[in-house]
């Protein structure tokens, strides 16, 4: 570690996270070796691939639409809300060789994987290192449970009077959480350590941390990470049952916000040791790095954030320590910013207590909706776009600041060349993750 890095680490050790009684807070971790981002992509309600995300961010064009998805209630109506739906999944059948995995969630995975040459580059890494040396770590909250929900609407009675899935749905792999991880493994031919991370809305942020550890410990030389979540009855009616779904397009960090808009998305990134990436450049060179990660638990409540933002602060602290930088060096922060009343006020206070007023921080869920288990990868892609294109997104759909907002939380887009950027994702169970990306 450089002297500068050490000094930074020492300063960070006293980052003022709230104290929790009877709870031991671990020491900050050492600086990590950064990983090169070899390629990255996302497919959301904004469109397919990086360029579609960038264009919509620049134009301030939301992908949210009136809900036309999911089971109808007893009134015959779908849930009255707005959603970020990906166009064209109904027409995007999987290739025949992958038909065992057929379902809406894996269709979105395939659609996302085939944008921006990510599938090609993943296979190239497999060819270079050996397919068993490239890990596959994919986040989701509900995987392909939409297929299981559909099966339950078409149950059949067999000869012994037992209710069974209809014949076209008797594909066990799509009715289990690892459906997504196994599908991506089959689609890419990669044979390194493969797992599905399912920690609700932090899932596909944590994939970066887990892949970084697999590479650091020598279990892989590179990793395909990502996240895929599709709209389904479980999340529409589940969040509705908690009173967290807005009837209008979401307004993160707005004083009048009244809940989230759900969305669906898929995204991927390829990670490789930074030194190896320099030795074997490809035709694509992003000069982008994963520089730090931090993970923590709120230890508070299954579905409500810690009132003082304790876990969020700890995750941010550890990410900064691993990157060896100070809060003042973060040029853009993509917030979790779900537009639920409790999340945003707590997050605004945390940001105000940790970061200087000069930070540009925003929630981009007004563009994509809350894509749940895909939020980590989608918002990491937006953070990487901010670094690559010097576009710092604002907070679409919001105009009246929540009183707790500090000057960090911006509603308008800005242009600035930045060196480091952070993405934070928080999930049910009090599961938190912060990531730091930077330019090489």
């Amino acid at each position: 570690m450089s002297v500068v890095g050490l000094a930074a680490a020492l300063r960070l050790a006293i980052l003022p996270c709230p104290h929790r009684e009877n709870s031991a807070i671990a020491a900050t971790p050492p600086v990590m070796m950064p990983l090169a981002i070899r390629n990255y992509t996302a497919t959301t309600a904004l469109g397919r691939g990086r360029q579609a995300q960038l264009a919509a961010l620049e134009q301030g064009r939301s992908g949210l639409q009136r809900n036309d998805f999911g089971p109808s209630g007893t009134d015959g109506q779908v849930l009255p809300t707005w959603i970020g739906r990906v166009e064209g999944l109904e027409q995007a059948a999987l290739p025949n060789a992958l038909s065992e995995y057929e379902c809406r969630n894996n269709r979105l995975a395939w659609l996302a994987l085939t944008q921006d040459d990510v599938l090609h580059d993943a296979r190239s890494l497999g060819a270079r290192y050996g397919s068993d040396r490239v890990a596959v770590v994919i986040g989701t909250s509900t995987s392909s449970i939409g297929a299981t929900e559909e099966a339950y609407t078409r149950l059949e009675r067999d000869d012994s009077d037992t209710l069974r899935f209809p014949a076209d749905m008797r594909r066990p792999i799509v009715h289990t959480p690892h459906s997504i991880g196994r599908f991506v493994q089959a689609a890419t031919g990669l044979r390194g350590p493969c797992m599905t991370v399912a920690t609700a809305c932090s899932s596909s942020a944590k994939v970066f941390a887990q892949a970084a550890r697999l590479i650091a410990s020598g279990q892989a030389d590179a990793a395909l990470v990502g996240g895929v979540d599709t709209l389904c009855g479980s999340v529409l009616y589940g969040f509705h049952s908690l009173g967290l779904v807005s009837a209008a397009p979401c307004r993160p960090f707005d004083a009048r916000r009244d809940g989230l808009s759900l969305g669906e998305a898929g995204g991927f990134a390829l990670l490789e040791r930074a030194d190896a990436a320099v030795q074997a450049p490809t035709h694509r060179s992003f000069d982008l790095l994963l520089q730090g990660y931090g993970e923590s638990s709120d230890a508070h409540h299954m579905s409500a954030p810690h009132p003082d933002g304790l876990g969020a602060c700890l995750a941010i602290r550890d990410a900064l320590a691993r990157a060896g930088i100070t809060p003042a060096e973060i040029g853009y922060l993509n917030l979790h910013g779900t537009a639920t009343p409790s999340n945003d006020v707590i997050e605004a206070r945390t940001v105000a207590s940790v970061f200087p007023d000069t930070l540009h921080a925003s929630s981009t869920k007004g563009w994509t909706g809350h894509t749940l288990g895909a939020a980590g990868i989608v918002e990491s892609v937006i953070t990487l776009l901010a670094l690559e294109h010097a576009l710092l997104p604002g907070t679409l759909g919001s105009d009246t600041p929540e009183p707790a907002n500090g000057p960090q939380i911006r509603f308008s887009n800005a242009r600035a060349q930045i060196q480091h950027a952070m993405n934070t994702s928080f999930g049910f169970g009090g599961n938190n993750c912060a990531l730091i990306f930077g330019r090489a």
Partner: protein
Amino acid sequence: MSRLCAQITGIGFWANALPSWQAARAFVATGALTSVTAAETAAETAARPQPRLLPPNERRRAPESVAVALEVALAACNDAGADPAQLPSVFASTHGDLAITDYMCATLAQDPAALSPIRFHNSVHNAAAGYWTIGNACTAATTAISAFDASFALGLVEALSQLDAGADAVLLAGYDSSATGPAATLWASHGLLGGALVLARAGAGPRLEAHLADGEAAPGTGALSIHAAGNAMAPMLPLFDALAVHAPTAILHAGPGRVLRIGLTMQGQPTR
């Protein structure tokens, strides 16, 4: 191929009729299922453990997958003499809670607006991880993974990688529940099963070394593997069988055509 290593400083185990690691080891040694006093039998060999970590009103309604995960996690920490509040943790489950999946899908098919908010937040794959960190006031990182029939092996790889990345000790818990309703026609997971390890850089207990390799893991032939063969987490059992008989190796399924090869070295006097 890089090897991962750890000391196993604590073990927790729960299967139907084998409500502790002690009972499991006795079963492996003698073939006897837990036979204790009548009062203890009722409590210990019940269909599900009672998670002491949760307040009494939450114990009863906690999903059975959460109950077994918390039981084995706490038992492993007690065995290791480790403070649960200090440990990062990895929770590995093939399916999560199959009964809640059945409830969610059946309710959505009939009357979606009737969905229970508590059942919904209990339906997340990281429900056990969440209750664990809340019950122990633990702010350390926790994760919840599935790798289908390789879930325990990949959870072990993640836990060992956390040690390699600097953690002093990590808790790993693997668990699955029984399938109910129409989904049970696809998934024949029976009973409740949980196994947990506290893995540490240093400390008393068996030394574990592991590395990923090509190969196929044979179905377990040990007593525990046979006893709980019907549960979806059964692929973890060759390791627990090996630990029970002090065998030097175990091979776990780690994905299509892949295995996790594990070497075990017993050190010093057995503490359990």
